[in-house]
């Protein structure tokens, strides 16, 4: 074999384990649940192989699923907006700080390394009936009885923001840090106030980072079922909770397949739209 031919084959040999793994453990399973979603769970608990539209009819027309899907979008959207409002100024501060930037960034990224379940349950210590806030309010005498602040939509959003904020900060930071600071100085010297310089120069240039952070927050937020289980009440189920219910509790795997594919299509469409207009490169910058 010639040297060139070997050069050509080598990368494929190196890539083959990864490509095989992803094909066998992701792409084929996804195709499989597509097929599975047309099967039927019979009353006896066995799956009937065939081409039934029942699961899709149920998933697409039942108002119950539609309402929870809309509720999921609402929660994910609010979470994303809150993350942007909290994360943008913080990321801007780190990027433009004259201090130790890597340390400042690392500090905000540290919680990212701390277990998701621990961070989620930590809010019970703060907002629970015998949590820090209630103890404090009782102590200063504002309330006489502890109040239940947990297990509602607001605490679900709070938990999600706490979980997803680092993704936003990192993406915005990468973007703002890459903008030449002298651009703002130039705008200033041409008569713009600092605020005008920010709104008309820095903010538009950092939008790709904001969009990447927003996409991550929305997609990850909309796909969660742990946060609503830990911090939400009975009416705060999100779409992923329905999937979990169908698969693990009811063992209705065909319906669960249809529901997961619905989630995949909706969130996948968002990623596609994002990719179409902004490309994956920005997202990779923030992840890598």
């Amino acid at each position: 074999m010639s040297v060139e031919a070997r050069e050509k084959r080598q990368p494929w040999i190196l890539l083959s384990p990864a490509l095989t793994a992803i094909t066998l453990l992701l792409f084929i399973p996804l195709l499989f649940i597509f097929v599975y979603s047309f099967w039927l769970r019979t009353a006896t608990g066995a799956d009937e192989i065939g081409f039934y539209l029942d699961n899709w009819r149920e998933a697409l027309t039942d108002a119950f699923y539609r309402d929870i899907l809309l509720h999921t979008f609402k929660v994910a959207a609010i979470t994303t907006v809150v993350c942007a409002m909290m994360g943008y100024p913080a990321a801007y501060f780190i990027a433009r700080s004259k201090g130790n930037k890597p340390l400042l960034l690392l500090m905000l990224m540290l919680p990212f390394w701390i277990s998701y379940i621990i961070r989620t349950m930590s809010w019970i210590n703060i907002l629970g009936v015998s949590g820090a806030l209630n103890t404090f309010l009782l102590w200063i005498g504002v309330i006489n009885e502890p109040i239940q602040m947990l297990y509602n939509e607001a605490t679900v959003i709070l938990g999600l923001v706490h979980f997803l904020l680092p993704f936003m900060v990192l993406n915005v930071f990468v973007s703002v840090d890459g903008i030449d600071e002298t651009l703002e100085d130039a705008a200033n010297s041409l008569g713009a106030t600092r605020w005008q310089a920010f709104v008309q120069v820095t903010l538009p240039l950092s939008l790709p980072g904001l969009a990447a952070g927003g996409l991550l927050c929305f997609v990850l937020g909309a796909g969660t079922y742990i946060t609503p289980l830990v911090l939400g009440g009975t009416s705060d189920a999100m779409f992923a909770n329905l999937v979990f219910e169908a698969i693990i509790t009811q063992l209705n795997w065909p319906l669960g397949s249809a529901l997961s594919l619905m989630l995949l299509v909706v969130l996948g469409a968002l990623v596609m739209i994002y990719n179409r207009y902004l490309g994956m490169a920005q997202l990779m910058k923030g992840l890598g």
Partner: protein
Amino acid sequence: MGERASLGWQLIRGYAVLVYLFMFLPVMVVVVLSFNASQFGSFPMTGFSFRWFVALWENEAILRAFRTSIVLGLLTSAISTTVGVLASLALVRYRVPGANMISTILIAPILVPEVVLAVALLLFLNFLGVNKSFALLLFGHVIFTLPFVILVVQARLIAIRRDIEEAAMSLGASPAQTFFQITLPLMLPAVLAGALFAFTISFDDITGTLFWKPGGVETVPTQIFAMLRNSISPEINALGTVMIFMTVGLPLLGLAIARQFARKSGG
């Protein structure tokens, strides 16, 4: 710079401090409460005590969960890193036709919501006769840590200069010798970073794990989740503190090691 002292900048700084507090306070409360002597896992603090850490140590279920998580994390890390490093090498070191397309395929497991990935893998492997088992957990953890390993390793591999290898080859080293004596030592920080990343993600995962784990097997996060269903016991806070020190301590240690290597190799 005079402007740095401006009111606007002061406001941004104050706001940033609040954001830092928001991120850290709940975690700090977990750590503080884990040393609470009171028999309830909540305020008020009645004294300083290690009793909950002792209780943790004596809780067989938690120790078992720890062992499961560590074995699973190490295996996941070993497999993901091996597969990921090979793929990264191919992408960084060779001109591969359709490299962009391949990169997208390799990171696809991140782009698919984890719940969907979990369902697909569970149902497909079950169809093939692999029931909920440790093997299924391992497959699952490998597939969703792989993209992260590839991203991290790739980013670091780009920084390694190719001419050092070429120099070794021109001095008569065989490709294998060059790889083991030149490339691998230079790659080591990248490999370690990838391995650490994979371990941490695997150790922390709950979303997929709850779908894949067989009945009776718990990892640390699913164990915490199960304990939360009853009530928040002080043991959970102690366990949380251990987890916090593990997951924050390990990457920091890794970072320090990487720095050390970088200094030694003059980079």
